[in-house]
């Protein structure tokens, strides 16, 4: 029995390897070639060079096709092997049921396990929940793509919001003439923090996806756009991150402004008296002294951003993404890809799945993971902040 199961696992891994890696790579190339082919074939008349290009594409497609077929056949054969054995089992009531071995994931007899085995099994389950792809329309399997998507999105968002928010705060606090205009800008920033998040989603869709993405597509991917397959002109992890960055930028600006204001006048004057320029003073003294406060702002921004779902639905989150935004295919980081997100995954599991009763444990577990992820991000930032604070903390001015 166990050897059969091991064989099943081995075959599944093999299928996964073939389909995801080898066939995936071929598909990716095919997709690009196919775009060019359709574009060239659609032209009413072709120059000689274009005709030659088209011929070359046909040849390459043929080559890829011939690579593809044996792989597909291999995968199909493996799949057949998966279902060729059946397992018959009887329930406690005496009924006899049967299942194909290929559908088995785990086989164990819970009542015969001793304590240690149960502990091991428990952690195995947690691990597979965290590390596997979802199966059966998200109701089974793991949530790894959603964890990864949330993480990547939060990191990208932080990378965008920190420089933008900090620069805005430096300008407002250190350079701008304090007057009516700056006051108005401050009020606007505070109000921005209160705008419902779905409004940011709509703005992100209009500005980032349609306007920026559309223009990027027209300039860099003209053929794909003409064929109706947008690259950046549709939701993706980049646009989602930027939308959330906009949503959280007020938090960073306010926190940074407060941190800058807390740097004492004495230190600033001392620096200027040493012959430092204003920018050197900011760079060498004010920003390092304000860093803990800036990080606090970033913590708050991440906590808000990672848990936000509504705007993401409009700018790139999906219930099931076939591939992660980061993988082994060139150029390795695919910012235009749609992605999965824990918050949306919860919604999808709890309210969109065919059997929401059955998905309930998944919903709770996923919620727990989302909360843990946010706590972990915050904890990391708090630790960094405390380290920075401790370095010169013995005296308050």
């Amino acid at each position, binding site marked *: 029995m166990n050897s059969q199961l091991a064989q099943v696992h081995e075959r599944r891994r093999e299928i996964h390897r073939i389909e995801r890696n080898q066939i995936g790579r071929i598909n990716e190339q095919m997709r690009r070639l196919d775009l060019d082919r359709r574009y060239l074939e659609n032209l009413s008349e072709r120059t000689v060079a274009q005709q030659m290009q088209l011929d070359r594409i046909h040849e390459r497609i043929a080559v890829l096709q011939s690579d593809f077929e044996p792989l597909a056949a291999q995968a199909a054969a493996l799949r057949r092997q998966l279902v060729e054995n059946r397992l018959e089992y009887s329930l406690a009531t005496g009924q006899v049921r049967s299942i194909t071995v290929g559908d088995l994931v785990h086989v164990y007899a819970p009542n015969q396990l001793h304590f240690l085995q149960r502990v091991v099994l428990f952690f195995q389950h947690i691990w597979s929940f965290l590390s596997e792809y979802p199966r059966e329309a998200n109701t089974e399997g793991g949530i790894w793509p959603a964890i990864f998507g949330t993480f990547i999105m939060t990191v990208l968002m932080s990378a965008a919001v920190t420089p933008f928010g900090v620069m805005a705060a430096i300008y407002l606090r250190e350079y701008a003439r304090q007057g009516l205009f700056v006051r108005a800008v401050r009020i606007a920033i505070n109000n921005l923090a209160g705008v419902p998040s779905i409004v940011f989603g709509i703005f992100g869709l209009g500005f980032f996806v349609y306007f920026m993405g559309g223009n990027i597509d027209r300039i860099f991917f003209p053929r794909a756009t003409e064929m109706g397959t947008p690259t950046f002109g549709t939701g993706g992890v980049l646009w989602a991150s930027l939308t959330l960055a906009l949503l959280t930028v007020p938090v960073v600006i306010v926190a940074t402004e407060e941190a800058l204001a807390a740097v004492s006048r004495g230190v600033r004057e001392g620096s200027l008296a040493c012959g430092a320029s204003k920018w050197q003073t900011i760079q060498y003294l004010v920003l*390092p002294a304000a860093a803990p406060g800036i990080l606090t702002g970033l913590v708050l921004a991440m906590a808000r951003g990672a848990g936000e779902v509504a705007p993401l639905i409009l700018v790139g989150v999906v219930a099931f993404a076939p591939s992660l935004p980061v993988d082994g295919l060139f150029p390795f980081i695919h910012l235009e890809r749609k992605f999965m997100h824990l918050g949306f995954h919860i919604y999808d599991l709890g309210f969109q799945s065919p059997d929401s009763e059955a998905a309930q444990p998944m919903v709770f577990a996923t919620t727990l993971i989302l909360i843990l992820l946010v706590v972990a991000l915050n904890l990391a930032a708090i630790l960094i902040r405390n380290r920075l604070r401790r370095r010169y903390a013995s005296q308050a001015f």
Partner: protein
Amino acid sequence: MPDPAIKTAVTPQASVTTSDVPLRADYISVRNFNFFYNGVHQVLFDLNLDIPERQVTAFIGPSGCGKSTLLRNINRMNDLIDGIRHEGDIFIDGHSIFDPDIEVISLRKRIGMVFQKSNPFPKSIYENIVYSLRVAGRHRKSELDEVVERSLHAAALWDEVKDRLHQSAFGLSGGQMQRLCIARAIANQPEIILMDEPCSALDPIATGKIEDLIHELKKQFTIVIVTHNMQQAARVSDRTAFFYLGKLIEYNSTEAIFMNPINSQTEAYVSGRFG
């Protein structure tokens, strides 16, 4: 009548010359200087005074009379404040500090400043001292090491901190911090040191150390010191200027100001019978 204790403290001080070039008697020269905060609020009235090179000049006067304002004009620290305005001019070594061709940063590089409240940077002792070199783009380690040792020796702090140069400056005592600020002010070899009540937060022992230090420093630097402590002015300075309500009332050798002041207000102030 002046306090007899002051008499014994005042000794004629010959200025120590270290080069052959004669020292200027008008190294810093303030001419018809008026100064306004918020455009209209005048705090300095038609000041004229010459501060001699490599001597200690003390500014004294009751609180609010504009001593700090004048001191902060010499390195244009007041530029930071919105709505200030001045009339007249200040010359250093014959050049106007308000000359549009002079960059305020290069002016400040020639002038060290020590503030009333010691203001070490939130950095290590070492980095505090080399700050003025770093902002001037000088990062060579051997040079920085040398400057740190020389400045700390000059500020009489070396023996106390030589084993913890790379620890935070906030771990020092108040008097040590103020001497660190002095070391920082002299690190980049300025020509002038401005001190605004450098000892007001220190105990007599730390004050004594800093006064000894000022005696040493005037061999190399032109020093202007603001102080509320009459004995201190008498002990450390060569010349003393007495200000009252933004006007220069009397300016003379310290001996003359304390022993036989011409103005009755000056006499009242230095003998502690003021107000």
